[in-house]
């Protein structure tokens, strides 16, 4: 059966990866018949209505899913197509209450025209009462107009479709997890919508264990827990986990705010380059937004001067590092090296077919683009891009290939970046502060 996913028209490159991920998660055989980044209407083939419900109900970028009753390039066409395609369905809805609505993409119609267009479907011979609220069935007419049709003097849409509403999505979650209403956030907290999409693409689900090694105020664990996953997080900066002051809001209090404390795994203070996690396949998913070195410096344990601090400092007969107030020294680190470390860590810690998703920034200028990192045990599943003016950030998702399928290849080691200061170590940061003028490498 043919169904239509009504997407929202934002984050276009994330829409298909999210839906495809949900199909993998639910084990649904999904065939995309037509999809375009320019249209919010995506036509798919699915085995059943039950599958359609499973696919749409936890999607963030879909608004709803419809059973397709017909398509055409004009209403005349559509009428004929509905007669041909879905006549066998009409008797099923003969007596139930119903309503019709019109969804015009990039176009507008007067209410007068709305009524005329709807009345054009009298031939369906529905006899049930019309209810604008709580109708048993909702039918919708979809119109696709050329961009800026009004200005171009175009009077009719270039294609029209009709569908029966099956079910809505999980877009309400965006409002629930809205950062404006969250009690504890930090400068780099991930927008609720994108965090939820990330959790979906990484296949967060009940019974699974997730981990964010750059947890901050916990945007990703919260989003993963929303979908039922048990979420762990760590950060090199303990302040973001602990919070400030007495009766303080902190990472855990976000779980309290949303009533998902049962799905809070743990949070601890650690550096990914010196992780305390044992080398074992512990996680179903890893999600993170590593610091790019712009808003938040990218640092790891160690001293800028590699010759320094090789012996413990003893003051007044007491080891300095055992004092409560001791803060271990940290040094700037290369963003690209960190990406490699994340991939290596994921290959060690993910279960077979477990997913890793992380965000990375890159300049829009091709010469300055940062290459997507690769790993022989990880397969790239999707790359989604959120564009800003001169730079963009990408959400890259990998699948841990089962060992039996891994083709061992000796990888070239990344050339170690020279230098000790943040600019030398991080080409993105350097470009960002120079406005991405040519040749910052």
């Amino acid at each position, binding site marked *: 059966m043919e169904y239509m996913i009504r997407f929202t028209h934002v984050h276009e490159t994330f829409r298909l990866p999210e839906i495809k991920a949900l199909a993998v998660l639910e084990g649904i055989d999904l065939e995309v018949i037509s999809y375009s980044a320019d249209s919010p209407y995506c036509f798919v083939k699915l085995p059943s209505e039950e599958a359609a419900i499973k696919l749409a109900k936890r999607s963030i970028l879909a608004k709803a899913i419809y059973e397709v009753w017909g398509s055409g390039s004009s209403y005349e066409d559509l009428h004929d197509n509905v007669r041909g395609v879905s006549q066998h369905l009409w008797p099923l809805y003969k007596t139930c209450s119903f309503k019709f609505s019109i969804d015009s993409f990039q176009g507008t119609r007067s209410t007068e025209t709305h009524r005329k267009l709807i009345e054009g479907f009298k031939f369906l011979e529905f006899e049930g009462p019309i209810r604008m609220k709580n109708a048993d069935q909702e039918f919708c007419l979809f119109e696709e107009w050329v961009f800026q049709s009004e200005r171009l003097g175009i009077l009719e849409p270039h294609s029209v479709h009709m569908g029966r509403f099956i079910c809505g999505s999980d877009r309400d979650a965006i409002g629930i997890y809205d950062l404006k209403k969250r009690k504890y956030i930090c400068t780099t907290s991930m927008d609720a919508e994108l965090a939820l999409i990330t959790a979906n693409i990484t296949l967060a689900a*009940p*019974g*699974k*264990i997730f981990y964010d090694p750059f947890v901050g105020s916990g945007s990703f664990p919260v989003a993963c827990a929303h979908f039922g996953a*048990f979420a*762990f997080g*760590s950060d*090199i900066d*303990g302040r973001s*986990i*602990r919070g400030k002051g007495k009766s303080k809001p902190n990472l855990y209090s976000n779980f309290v705010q949303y009533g998902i*404390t*049962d799905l809070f*795994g*743990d*949070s*601890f*203070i*650690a*550096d990914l380059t*010196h*992780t*305390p*996690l*044992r*080398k*074992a*396949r*512990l996680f*179903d998913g890893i999600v993170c937004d590593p610091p790019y070195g712009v808003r938040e410096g990218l640092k790891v*344990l*160690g*001293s800028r001067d590699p010759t*320094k*601090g*090789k*012996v*413990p400092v003893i003051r007044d007969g007491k080891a*300095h*590092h*055992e004092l409560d107030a*001791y803060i*271990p*020294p940290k040094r700037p680190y290369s963003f690209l090296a960190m990406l490699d470390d994340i991939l290596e860590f994921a290959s060690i810690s993910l279960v077979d077919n477990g997913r890793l998703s992380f965000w990375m920034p890159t300049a829009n200028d091709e010469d300055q683009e940062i290459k997507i990192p690769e790993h022989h045990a990880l397969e790239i599943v999707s790359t989604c891009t959120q564009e800003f003016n001169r730079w963009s950030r990408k959400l890259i998702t990998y699948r841990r290939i089962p060992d039996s399928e891994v083709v061992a290849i000796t990888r070239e080691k990344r050339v170690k970046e020279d230098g000790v200061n943040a600019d030398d170590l991080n080409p993105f940061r350097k470009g960002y502060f120079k406005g991405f003028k040519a040749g910052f490498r």
Partner: protein
Amino acid sequence: MKVLTLNFLTCAVKACKSSTSSFPLHPKECELVSDSIVPNPALLTNILPRVDWSALITISTELGFPTLPPTAPTIEELQSDEKMMAELHTLLLETQISEGSLVCGNCGHEYKIKEGIANFLLPNHLV
């Protein structure tokens, strides 16, 4: 810090990773608290194969809990044994260390736990 998490953690010092005595970390002067969590059998069955059972026995004994069976139950055994399910739920997910430290059996380094949050940052001479 949950007992489950303790089962996932070893010493952060790189030289200790290869030593068997670095895992599990040993709780020292620990205060325990218990949080009530809704049972989650799907999670527990998923967790079971990832838990290092002999390390769990060690930790459970060190924290003064009743002795666990010498070998881990299979997933089928766990699913058919409500009592075992409830006991593991309490031990792994509800029991938490709120204050204290974790000691590496190899290098002796102590990681402090404060308000349930463990700190695994290393002093410079151990990096």
